[in-house]
């Protein structure tokens, strides 16, 4: 979604043609999210369909410019005013789900699962830090844009590392309290339709509650990965 709104925000600065728009997006995001021109045109088509931009007649060289409409301008203002809602996408973080599932499986060394991830996360963090350190302080608006994206990735990786530390401690506490036991396959016949909400809060296996809590925490700290910068 943010590609659409980013392109619209750029068009709010003045009419652009497709390649120009790609170049503008590129330099304003530190080249951290390469878009192909096909994506640009398909986005422009949708923006045009929704009445947010309109096509101009070709210039003398036949170049088609896209111009923002009043509705498009309002949409940009609304985008800048609103928070980005990661919502359910963050709760469905692949890593959080993997850990939650792994914690219910017998014979899985969950500490090792966490450590493997931690080493990988730290390695990413080292590489990002090295790239940022090699670049020094930003000296232009474009470099500043790149640094903002680099910082976002660094902080997201840090959050992931902290969440892993936290989960490890939580699981160790649960284990010490005798709560960490694998979940065997249930013999109950599942009801059709969506799972009943009460399953989470009911007096089911305490382990499941601990894992659910860990998952919710993950949703609040594991960020940015879904938002393109990690592509």
């Amino acid at each position, binding site marked *: 979604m943010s590609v659409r709104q980013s392109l619209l925000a750029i068009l709010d600065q003045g009419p652009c043609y497709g390649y120009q728009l790609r170049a503008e997006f590129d330099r304003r995001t530190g080249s951290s999210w390469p878009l192909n021109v096909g994506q640009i045109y398909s986005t422009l088509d949708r923006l045009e369909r929704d009445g947010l931009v309109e096509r101009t007649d070709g210039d003398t060289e036949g170049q088609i410019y896209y111009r923002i409409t009043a509705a498009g301008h309002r949409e940009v203002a609304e985008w800048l005013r609103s928070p980005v809602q990661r919502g359910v996408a963050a709760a469905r973080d692949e890593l959080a789900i993997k850990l939650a599932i792994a914690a219910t499986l017998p014979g899985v060394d969950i500490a090792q699962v966490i450590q493997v991830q931690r*080493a990988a996360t730290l390695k990413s963090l*080292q590489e990002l830090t090295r790239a940022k*350190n090699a670049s020094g302080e930003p000296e232009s608006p474009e470099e500043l844009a790149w640094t903002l994206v680099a910082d976002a990735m660094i*902080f997201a990786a840090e959050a992931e590392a902290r969440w892993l*530390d936290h989960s490890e401690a939580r699981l160790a506490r649960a284990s010490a309290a005798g709560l960490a036991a694998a979940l065997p396959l249930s013999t109950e016949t599942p009801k059709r339709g969506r799972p009943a909400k009460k399953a989470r809060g009911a007096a089911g296996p305490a382990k499941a509650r601990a894992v659910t809590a860990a998952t919710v925490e993950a949703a609040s700290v594991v960020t940015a990965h879904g938002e393109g910068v990690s592509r």
Partner: protein
Amino acid sequence: MSRAATAPDELLRLDGVAMHYGKGETSVTALAGIDLTVSRGELVAVMGASGSGKSTLLTIAGGLTRPTSGEVIVEGQWLSDMSPARIAMLRRRSLGFVFQDFNLVPVLTAIENVTLPLELDGWKRGKARRAALDALDSVELADRADRFPDDLSGGQQQRVAIARAIVGSRRLILADEPTGALDSTTGEVVLRMLRGRVDAGAGGILVTHDARHAAWADRIVFLRDGRIVDESTADRAESLLTGRHTV
């Protein structure tokens, strides 16, 4: 005892270092057989939960505590062969410590703080002062040489501590949570300085619980229950982030 020669670039080696407190049933193992080397130009971060043995490892590496077993070799010298007085001398000449709370002497100026270990080691005042100025210059604080710690910001105080750690011929920096008392941006400046000193030929161990700070190291070792359980090395060829100056 015969001693194998160490590699010329090797600043520190821990060979099977173990540390137990107490005896018998009540014995507590802080470190259980640590092997670790630090070479010139290398920064090694040590991470682990509280009680994993991080700080014990640092005090043993710095010759402040003798391990129950195993060997500590600093610049080719086996600490187990040395008297406490000689270890103290080695500490002054070869090792620099950086702590979370800076540990500067408040009644001495920045340059006097940096000069102190050299003067304790018998350096002439003028020579010690020149070396201290060089060290302060390397952390971009030469113009603050005559300020007292109270007149310096936290970040500047920690940079003085780094200058003190590397002054003279010292090449091994042992840092225990050096950014713990600093805000995020200031901490980054301090780490950049530390990294710069290592890139210029020093070596160091950085004990931290902060992943973002550990990421400045070339290698990260993970301690759990006194053992190294894993290690992460940055792959210089690979980058997650392109653009600007692709590294």
